């Protein structure tokens, strides 16, 4: 290309720093890069945006796949990619999304913390219903378009809490490739708590049913303010899918599956280990009914019936997102609303800004602090930011 053309192009090219004000507004950081809360400089609208700067220079495989996927998705409950900026001088890639003040992960953390501090705050039941409906709606859209990620196990947890599963396709790889140890990520996020039993028994393929299980776990947590399959943290770098303590926890809530309830359990790769390590009789007294009754959810309520269908051990019998959306629970008063916060106070704090170059050590402390329930949430991931975007704005739906 000739020189004049190049200079003309460089002058015309829009640069992200000219268009958006984001300095000092960092709200998240992680292995994927940095996220800023941004406003446009020209004042054409007062909307808040989330700007994500992808770590590293050039277009990495994960960035490439993420962008390509986001370009094709369009649903009110799935994050919308507004624009991509390719910065020429430093070869950085910037993604522009809508901003969301609150996210599901944020909400769950808040309630966990309030419970830990002995000041339990229940989520309003209407809000739980609306949240669940929107999560299912988003997942159904993704499932209908066959967006799910094959061999990504760890990601399942992460993606779900973020609601915007799809957008995570790119990151998925990050967890699989041991470029950075998983412990670098939020230690609470990378847990086995939301993993479906078939994954713990060595299932190799990522299926829609696995997503549904995770939704069931989240639903239970929204109802009780505590992770249903809470389990001691183990070495998360382990490559073995079999996870004794986690399975033990699942069985002690749900009971050991009867042969007729899950016939194919015998075909699972880790079935021999299961037989060796577990006794059915240990869990004879456990059932989901008892667990939820302790949390004041009646076994004949529609809430419970839906939860039971989502948390079905046998993946082939587990309800699909489409069926779940038709569930009587959503037809019963209060009906789900498009604004999940409809008619309630929002007790959740707004996002805090991070300083530009926080030393590693401090990050550690932050992590610790919200684990101890101080509630200063520093979300490491953009998906979490954008996911609730429609909880407030979405007008049409339901």
């Amino acid at each position, binding site marked *: *290309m000739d020189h004049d053309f190049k200079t003309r192009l460089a002058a015309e090219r*829009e640069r992200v720093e*000219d*268009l958006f004000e984001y300095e000092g507004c960092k709200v998240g950081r992680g292995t994927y890069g940095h996220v800023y809360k941004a406003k*446009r400089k*020209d004042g*054409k609208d007062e909307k808040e945006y989330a700007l994500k700067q992808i770590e590293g220079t*050039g*277009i*990495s*495989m994960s960035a*490439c*796949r993420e*962008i*390509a*996927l986001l*370009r*094709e998705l*369009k649903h009110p409950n799935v994050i919308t990619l*507004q*624009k*991509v900026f*390719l910065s020429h001088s430093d*070869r950085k890639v910037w993604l*522009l999304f809508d901003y969301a003040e609150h996210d599901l992960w944020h909400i769950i953390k808040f309630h966990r913390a309030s419970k830990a501090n002995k000041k339990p705050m229940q989520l309003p039941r209407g809000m739980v219903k609306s949240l669940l409906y929107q999560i299912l709606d988003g997942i159904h859209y993704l499932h209908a378009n066959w967006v799910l990620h094959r061999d990504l196990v760890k990601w399942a947890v992460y993606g779900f809490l973020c609601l915007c599963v799809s957008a995570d396709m790119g990151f998925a790889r990050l967890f699989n490739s041991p470029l950075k140890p998983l412990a670098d990520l939020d230690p609470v996020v990378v847990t086995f708590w939301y993993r479906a039993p078939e994954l713990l028994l060595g299932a190799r393929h990522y299926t829609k049913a696995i997503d549904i299980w995770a939704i069931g776990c989240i639903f239970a947590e929204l109802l009780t303010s505590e992770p249903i399959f809470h389990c001691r943290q183990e070495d998360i770098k382990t490559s073995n899918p079999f996870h004794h303590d986690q399975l033990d926890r699942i069985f002690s809530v749900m009971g050991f599956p009867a042969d007729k309830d899950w016939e194919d359990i015998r075909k699972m790769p880790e079935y021999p280990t299961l037989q060796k390590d577990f006794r059915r009789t240990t869990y004879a007294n456990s059932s989901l009914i008892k667990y939820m009754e302790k949390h004041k959810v009646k076994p004949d309520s529609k809430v419970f019936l839906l939860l039971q269908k989502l948390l079905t051990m046998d993946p082939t019998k587990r309800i699909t997102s489409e069926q779940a959306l038709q569930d009587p629970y959503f037809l019963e008063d209060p009906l789900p609303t498009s604004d999940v916060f409809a008619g309630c106070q929002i007790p959740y704090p707004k996002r805090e800004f991070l300083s530009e170059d926080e030393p590693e050590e401090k990050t550690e402390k932050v992590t610790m602090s919200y684990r101890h329930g101080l509630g200063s949430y520093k979300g490491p991931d953009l998906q979490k930011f954008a996911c609730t975007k429609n909880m407030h704005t979405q007008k049409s739906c339901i």
Partner: protein
Amino acid sequence: QGILIGDKVYSEVFLAIDSSLIPEERLFTTPSMLDGLDRETETDLRILGCELIQAAGILLHLPQVAMATGQVLFQRLFYSKSFIKHSFEIVAMACVNLASKIEESPRRVRDVINVFHHLKQGKGKNTPLVLDQNYINTKNQVIKAERRVLKELGFCVHVKHPHKIIVMYLQVLECEKNQMLVQTA
């Protein structure tokens, strides 16, 4: 509709069959033809580019689907950019590089350049690529071309290949044993 950024309105993406097919008028007067390239030369360049992508992919041990994707990207790009202004060789390298990422078997730019260098030498010769300023320039050009491809295609780079579907159709038609037909397809 769309989003206003700076002075331009950027359209929202709507992917459907209509927007992934190139309209006929653009097929017949390509950007290269507008720049004065004749149809035969353009066709030759397209074929050559695709053959290079295929050969390079084999040498890089890429899965066949990556080469197919790369070729589609290459073809698509030259319906909105001209062969006169963009070196087909650099673009072909960029397409191999990009397709390797899309199909989840990433290759380094360096490997791609090496393979293209090898292909260019022809049979019998095998001088290694010298890492000089020339190499650095080529590498930068490839990286830039990759970004250009992405920008020009609006990051819509997931390609649905017909091959699997064709095999299925042939099975339905009970023709899967007819080797000639299968391979022609």
